[in-house]
């Protein structure tokens, strides 16, 4: 299949756009594979892509119960950044951000990666000290971070009410290399590139059971029959616990709701990503013109993919505190996704108690930015049956060993992370 390019758009335009082919095949499942990846979100598709491109393992199926990219991949607010504090996390997320920076070339697909800058506002001395500490930790690991004062925030994002009577803005932690990407295109791009390397992307194929013999995985049962493989990787976001229950073990995960909102479209208003420090609110503007915003968890476990109004009210009122001009706008749509929350807020990319079964899970509300890094590390772990040093700390066993990766020090409360 010829690749995508500016030249091709030109020639197709002259030929009535008759030469475009679907970006990936609709594959039917074969009886067996070398590796099965469960879940056709960004993480599952990225795992398959890196298995093929980095490790030469191309006899791979991605099994998706619905259509690819319609889980959290298509529901998130698309923020990409690597502004974490703990070295285990910031090294991993920085690796992921570097993969993002070259992703369009590696996939031959426009994922609309836009490094427009991410600012976390702070409003008091304690928050400022925490931001300085996190910024310094990033810089020690070679990651870009800057502290803006009030005037710096005002210059970069004039619409923010820096002199808010109740929560004046003292400044912000800025990562200029952070930004946003087009969520659907990320799923489609990984699907396109994985398919081009021989991976089967099987949609409408729900995994309903695990075939385990002598403590080792042999394959999975699905709504489209039994499929065998000596290695299976789980990348099912909020559904991880239901899949591990099929394999006979529990994991430190509770599934929670997170909502997102989009306003009516308007002219360019906000050209970076800004997060509020005095309430749960963050915002960016999509290329279509809608403001894309969100806040915190609804606060109780749910697989329902829909939130309730108290959280919506909080998000809207925090938004109007930060940017009073938003009060003139209408909300257009809102929706929710299911987050696999962990007791320390950090993910799992690891082996499991079942030989040959691997997982990338526990992404909480921050897994979109991790998509390439998660796929890359998951693929490595599957191919070598051992973690890469970047994900060596992200195990299921870390709590037993007292090695939590708790960025915020919130303790073992899934809903507080």
């Amino acid at each position: 299949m010829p690749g995508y390019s500016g030249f091709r758009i030109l020639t197709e335009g002259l030929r009535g756009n008759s030469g475009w082919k679907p970006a990936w095949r609709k594959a039917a499942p074969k009886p067996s594979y070398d590796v099965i990846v469960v879940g056709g979100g960004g993480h599952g598709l990225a795992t398959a892509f890196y298995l093929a491109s980095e490790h030469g393992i191309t006899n791979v199926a991605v099994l998706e119960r619905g259509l690819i990219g319609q889980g959290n991949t298509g529901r998130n607010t698309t923020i990409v950044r690597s502004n974490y504090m703990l070295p285990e996390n910031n090294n991993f997320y920085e690796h992921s951000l570097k993969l993002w920076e070259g992703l369009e070339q590696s996939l031959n697909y426009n994922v609309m990666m836009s490094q427009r800058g991410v600012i976390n506002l702070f409003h008091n001395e304690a928050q400022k000290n925490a931001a300085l500490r996190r910024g310094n930790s990033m810089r020690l690991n070679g990651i870009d971070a800057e502290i803006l004062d009030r005037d710096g925030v005002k210059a970069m994002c004039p619409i923010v009410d820096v002199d808010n009577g109740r929560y004046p803005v003292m400044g912000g932690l800025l990562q200029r290399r952070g930004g946003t990407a087009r969520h659907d295109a990320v799923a489609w791009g990984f699907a396109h590139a994985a398919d081009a390397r021989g991976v089967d992307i099987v949609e409408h194929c729900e995994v309903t059971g695990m075939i385990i013999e002598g403590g080792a995985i042999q394959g999975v049962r699905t709504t489209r029959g039994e499929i065998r493989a000596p290695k299976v990787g789980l990348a099912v976001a909020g559904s991880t616990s239901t899949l591990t229950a099929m394999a006979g073990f529990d994991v430190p995960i509770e599934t929670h709701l997170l909502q997102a909102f989009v306003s009516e479209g308007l002219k360019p208003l906000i050209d970076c990503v800004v997060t509020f420090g005095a309430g749960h609110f963050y915002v960016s503007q999509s290329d279509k013109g809608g403001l894309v915003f969100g806040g915190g968890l609804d606060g109780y476990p749910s697989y329902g993919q829909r939130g309730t109004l108290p959280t919506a009210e909080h998000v809207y009122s925090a938004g109007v505190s930060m940017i009073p001009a938003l009060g003139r706008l209408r909300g257009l749509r809102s929706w929710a996704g299911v987050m696999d929350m962990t007791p320390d807020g950090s993910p799992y990319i690891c082996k499991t108690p079942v030989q040959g079964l691997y997982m990338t899970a526990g992404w909480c509300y921050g897994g979109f930015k991790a998509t390439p890094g998660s796929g890359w590390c998951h693929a490595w772990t599957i191919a070598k049956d051992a973690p890469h040093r970047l994900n060596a700390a992200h195990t299921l066993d870390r709590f037993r060993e007292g090695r939590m990766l708790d960025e915020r020090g919130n303790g073992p409360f899934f809903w507080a992370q």
Partner: protein
Amino acid sequence: MLRIPCPHCGARDEVEFIYRGDATVTRPGPDGDVGAFHDYLYLRRNPRGWQVEWWQHNGGCRTFLKVLRHTVTHEVRAVATATETLEVPGA
């Protein structure tokens, strides 16, 4: 909006309550080993269906309540005080 019927205060909106975790895990005794405490603190069934949960009525009587709630429909089926037991349907 969830409505939770508090046995002490009557039916109230979810904003008066805070979810406080899975109520089916029990704290091991003082002789429990690391494994038992690990499982109690960290491992969760996380069912897609009925779950018995702790909710604190912090905007009312402030007591901890057991609530039987469905994690897909969000239906609240039964509420009890902390010392009572709630059966999970079909369990």
